[in-house]
């Protein structure tokens, strides 16, 4: 088991090297030099541009640039923002907790809805309730989050003269105000995942409930609760967990949109502002960190299989 965890963690290294190469290549090799752009929009003099190029090392060969960048990253130094000159790591760390809060709340929302509904649908396939709930799941999947978010801003304002709170309050200052601020964006973000999870939970429950060991559990005279929750659910959840791990990049992408619409100062809205300013030191750092995050979560999910399904043996 320990050897498996160690090997799984070691395998992160080659993948991260490729990821870092992709990030580096996309930002440096695509036409449209950042400095040229800055000269054209920001009244830079040609001398200042040359000095900046020198300072950023953009005149060096690509492999030297990559080496400099990656050795900084390993030491936790992501460079400075091109616009504000603040250390990139500080900017990201300041905004990260807000995005994590949004993500955690939307995941919580998605699972609170999806798991009970999925279990119910799986236990009563093709019943009226199942059909209605499945239609709702499809609705959750099809409604674009940016449209839903915009509608939530518009319609209550027109109908009831009420609109969701838009000013950021820190959790530590006023927990209640902070939660009311996050709850609507979290629901908008979690809806899609909730629909997808609901459908998969239903399918997996259908499959697991058919298996012999579940029949044995029924035959032993166990109560429904015990059969469904203790015997069936545990095995049904395994693929559900994998799926959530695989959908994490989509969720992070959704957070960009939702934070932008609801004006939450997290990582997602940072992406939109830095893109508009072409602040590519922050962009490289964000792309790299998000990929690392997704990778890590998927490794943790892989490892947690052992707990969910003791039949899986690690060799």
């Amino acid at each position, binding site marked *: 088991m320990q050897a498996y965890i160690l090997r799984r963690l070691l395998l992160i290294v080659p993948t991260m090297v490729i990821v870092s190469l992709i990030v580096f290549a*996309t930002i440096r090799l695509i036409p*449209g030099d950042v400095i040229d752009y800055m000269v054209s929009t920001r009244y830079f003099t040609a001398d200042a541009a040359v000095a900046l190029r020198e300072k950023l090392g953009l005149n060096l060969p690509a492999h030297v640039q990559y080496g400099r960048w990656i050795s900084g990253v390993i030491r936790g130094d992501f460079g400075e923002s091109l616009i504000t000159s603040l250390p990139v790591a500080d900017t990201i760390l300041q905004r990260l907790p807000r995005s994590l809060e949004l993500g955690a709340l939307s995941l919580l929302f998605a699972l609170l809805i999806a798991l009970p509904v999925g279990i119910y649908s799986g236990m009563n396939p093709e019943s009226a309730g199942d059909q209605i709930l499945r239609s709702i799941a499809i609705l959750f999947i099809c409604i674009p989050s940016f449209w839903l978010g915009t509608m939530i801003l518009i319609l209550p304002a*027109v109908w009831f003269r009420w609109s969701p709170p838009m000013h950021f309050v820190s959790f530590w200052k006023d927990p209640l105000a902070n939660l009311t601020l996050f709850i609507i964006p979290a629901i908008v973000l979690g809806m899609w995942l909730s629909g997808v999870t609901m459908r998969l939970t239903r399918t997996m429950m259908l499959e697991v409930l058919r298996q012999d060991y579940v029949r044995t559990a029924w035959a032993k005279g166990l109560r429904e609760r015990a059969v469904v929750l203790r015997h069936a659910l545990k095995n049904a959840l395994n693929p559900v967990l994998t799926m959530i791990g695989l959908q994490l990049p989509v969720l992070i992408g959704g957070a960009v949109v939702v934070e932008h619409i609801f004006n939450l100062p997290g990582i997602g809205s940072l992406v939109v502002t830095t893109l508009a300013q072409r602040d590519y030191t922050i962009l490289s750092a964000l792309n790299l960190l998000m*990929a690392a995050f997704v990778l890590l979560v998927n490794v943790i999910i892989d490892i947690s299989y052992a707990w969910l399904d003791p039949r899986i043996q690690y060799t």
Partner: protein
Amino acid sequence: MSGPDPTAAQAAASARRGTLRDLLPRLFREKKLGAVGMIIVLVFLLVGVFADVLAPADIRERNLMHALEGPSAQFPLGTDHIGRDLLSRVIHGARISMIVGVGAVAIGLVIALFFGLLSGYWGGVFDLLVQRLVDAWLTFPWLFIVLTVMSLLGQGMVQMTVVLGAFTGIGNIRTVRGVVLSTRQNAYVEAAQAIGCRTWRILLRHILPQVWPPIIVVFTVSLGAVILSESTISFLGFGIPPPQPSWGGMLSLEGRTYMEVAPLLALWPGLSLAIVVFGINMFGDALRDLLDPRLTGGAGRLRAAKVRKRSKP
């Protein structure tokens, strides 16, 4: 099992082709919702192709006298902030979604087939390299990297189509490779190798036909994802530039600026988008159940389980 029986493989292959041929009647008979989805997709494609004919007004024509009006006989869905006919703009939005969607899926198909076929058939170092690249690629939050590339390439329909196509393609290399790996085991492929067929002939004539059913399913669903991505990126302001009526862009600029005066402005593009994505998803789900029960999904697995049970002695 010493190896797959060639006659069984042939039978399976002809059964597969059979499912492709009588797909349409089965869709209408067994999958009512999927048929509805297919009709929505067809209507969407037709509206996209004939947008010029269908749109009642010129989308560039401004009527400042009629700005931000509600629905009327002259403007069935109302007008935007400079008095352009909203219905015509939504119809032309369908054309943009269609061009980007179909174009990106076509590009993606070529990429996925090329690398998937070669990687599955050759194996070895090439396969290893491609697979590691795909691994790394799949860990990216796609929106981050698409937005980054779009901001560097500049806005525009061509850029959007190429970028989304590349993403769809790379994401689906593995699906193709998986089918190739299992098909390569068949005796008829070995026979073709033994009589000295060229690699491209084996790939195109013997392996490709087996790849089609899962690929049709995967790329139908991808069409929905691409259309949704395009409008999301345009909504954020990095996709199709403003004078062109992209559904996402319409929601972002006019929709959000004038939302309190004319809330309906944001309603129509989003509603069209939701209906089209719904149709594509339903159609894709039905196709998956009919063509490829091995992939995870709705009733396909259930039916497979039933069949297994019945065939037990």
